[in-house]
């Protein structure tokens, strides 16, 4: 199940959200930003939804706050249309993936969470694939160093042999000359 965190100062919204999506997602809700941070720390949250207009802290501000520690969860902003400037700003800065306007449409929201989760996992997948590639590359690099080292030994051997041959050739020449 997808782990979704929903932050809103309006408790009724939280209730409604959980009631709507508890069957589909692992829903975590809270009215307090500090509580939200605690949940982030303890749960493998994939998608974060926050209301924009809250006392103390706006949604965008909350996202800015958690970005350094939790960059991976996909962020979505729940807004009234009055906050459109804040939303545009936030999108342009790459802080949020989507914004949802109130009142939400349940199925759309569900789809969006799904999408966000997919994105999360895709990113995760990309990240792990990248790591695998990196490992392989490292291995290849190690390998090549070893080969190089071997090649270097070969060259040395070859040089000795060449010298021996040359000495032999010289001796042979001397021999031939002396003859």
């Amino acid at each position, binding site marked *: 199940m997808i782990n979704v965190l929903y932050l809103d100062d309006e408790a*009724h*919204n939280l209730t409604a959200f959980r009631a709507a999506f508890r069957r589909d997602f692992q829903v975590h809700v809270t009215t307090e930003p500090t509580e939200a941070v605690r949940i982030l720390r303890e749960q493998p949250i994939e998608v974060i939804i926050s209301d924009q207009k809250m006392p103390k802290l706006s949604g965008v501000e909350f996202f800015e706050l958690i970005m350094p520690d939790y960059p991976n969860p996909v962020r979505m902003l729940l807004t009234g249309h009055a906050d459109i400037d804040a939303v545009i700003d936030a999108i342009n800065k790459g802080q949020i993936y989507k914004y949802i306007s*109130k009142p939400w449409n349940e199925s759309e929201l569900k789809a969006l969470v799904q999408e966000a989760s997919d994105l999360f996992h895709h990113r995760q997948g990309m990240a792990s694939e990248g790591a695998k590639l990196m490992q392989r590359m490292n291995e290849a690099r190690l390998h090549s160093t070893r080969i190089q080292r071997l090649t270097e030994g070969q060259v040395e051997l070859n040089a000795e042999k060449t010298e021996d041959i040359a000495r032999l050739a010289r001796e042979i020449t001397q021999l031939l000359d002396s003859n």
Partner: protein
Amino acid sequence: MGCSIRIRGLRTAWIGVFLAMISTVGAQEFIGTRVESLDQSLTPALMGVEAVALSENWSAHTDRVPNLGLSDDVQWIRVILDSKTENGMLLEIQNAGIDELTGYMICDGKVTASFERGVIASSHVESTMGTYPTFPIPLTECDELTVLFRLKSSKPLLLPMRIAGPREIIGDSHQRDVLFAAYFGVILVMLLYNLFLFFSVGDRSYLEYSLFILMIGGTQLVLNGYTSYLQIQSLPWLNHRITHFFGVFSGLTTIVFVQNFLRLSRYVPWLHKLLNFYFVIYLIAFVLAIFGQLIWSYNVINFCAAAIFFCIPGSIITMRKGYAPAKYFLLAFTIFIIAVLVFVLKDSGIIPYNAWTFFALPLGSAIEMVVLSLALASRINQLKKESAIAREEQMRSLQLNERLVREQNNVLEDRVKSRTADLEEMNSTMRATLEELQSAQQQLVQSEKLASIGQLTAGIAHELNNPINFVSSSAQSLRRDFEDLNEVVDAVKTLDPAMEDIGSKVEALKSKLAKLDIDFTQREIDELLKGIEDGTMRTSEIVRGLRIFSRMDGDNFIQAQVNELIESTLIVLRSNLKDVATVRYTLADNLPLVTCQPGRLNQVFMNIITNAAQSMEGLEREFEDNEVYIQTALTESIGQSWIEVRIKDSGVGMPEGVKSQIFDPFFTTKPVGEGTGLGLSIVMGILRDHNAEVEVESEEGLGSEFIIRFPL
């Protein structure tokens, strides 16, 4: 001696007048040829009367009327009388102006009687017969009867003498009195008449003429021995000089009268100046008389008398210049001068002596007065005519002026019109500009209103979004929860205690219940229902607040509850304020309704509360420090009840410079484009319409407080 001056002959007209006056009507024969005078140079100054009589230096006169001239020396004359025929008769000297005159009757070398008859002697009037001094010739028998006279006078010593009986002398005197009475009657009538004219017409020339008449008449009075009627015997100083004074004043008044009557300053300026000169000379004569220089004074008066002759050429010139009254004047003076000539000629024996010739002078003088009176009337007519002409001239110039003024007025009117038109044009331009400005202002006010409405709409939309969101969402969730419940219920419905596998079915149901987490579902249903209830309640509350807030019939004054207005404003603003500050309020529950425009008051509260919130936006501090505190109360001050609304924030506050300008239109502390600067100016306008008082308290860094008081 040295200072004696003798004037012989008739040098001036005035001397002619004198001559005329000392002639008499009745005395046919003067005894001038019998008179002997003492040669002064041969006679010692101090001698007794009898010694004088015995003097050898007597010389006879040849004239009918001896003239001893003008001298301040004592003169002596004698007449040898016929003691047989002449005793008992009277010797008369027809000169009433001799200052000192003493007659001595000498009978055979002895003085038998002496008589004081001079002007100075007080006995003169009482002891003489008639107006002239007379001396009775004694009846005593003498071989040789001589009368000796001692004379001294400040006037010419003309001595027309005769010997006649008392009856003849008194008769002649009476005749003269009658004639002169008539003459003075004429003078008096003329005087009064002209004075009357002066007072009724107000023309100065009448007064001058009156004075002229007075002086001429007075001169005649004095010269003909009627001085006593002036009652100045008790004033010897004046009595002594009266002839001089009359001479001076008749000259002065004549000059003034002639000058003004003939308008010499206009027609004959040179004569005018000449007469002025004479005027001054007369004044000198006056001063000389006052200081006792009577002889000199008399000489000066004589000299000035020549001035009268200038009146003839003066009047001719004036007449020629078209001044009609001058001809009367000429006539009057010609008659007068002829009268004088007649008198002089009579005295010198050229024409016969009779009553007419004797009285020629007073008659001429009287005629002169009458003609001059006519002349004056003519002059007045002339003046009237002239003033009529002048008036006409004035009228014409007035009309001309009027025309000029009218033309000028027209020009001015035109100018005023054009200026008025300019001004009107300017006015209309200004009016148009004003209208543009007003409409611009209205637009600004409107845009301010729209801006706040926009802000409001956004806030309300947001405010409504939350309950709508969770109500609609909860409804869907409830459906699913109920589906779960229904599933259980359906399953329960199928259960029948009679069923054999009831036990396993119940087990299955139980596991299903567990699987569906029905306990949780039930709790959830509860919560969701609570949310829906809460949501609908909040929605209706918002809608109600909005309705109160947006009573845009608010331009009408109605009764409203201020608390309600504030609450509705807060509902509308809640979402806008939510993330900025905590709003707290204490609303008094005893507030009466207030007559107001609710819609516009909401605008006031919204504006001030929004400003309060904005003053705390973006401050680096705990959210809990941002607070808007609203308080309403019923207060009393200055004998009046007020509803007081205090809106306080803990924002940045304002410096004094900002505070003093916040109500000015277009004043804003916000960046360009973010505020119109009209908000508080509109607030002020609205509050002024409500007669409300506004007080602002602010301290930088601590916040501001708006205190509004509505009068009840």
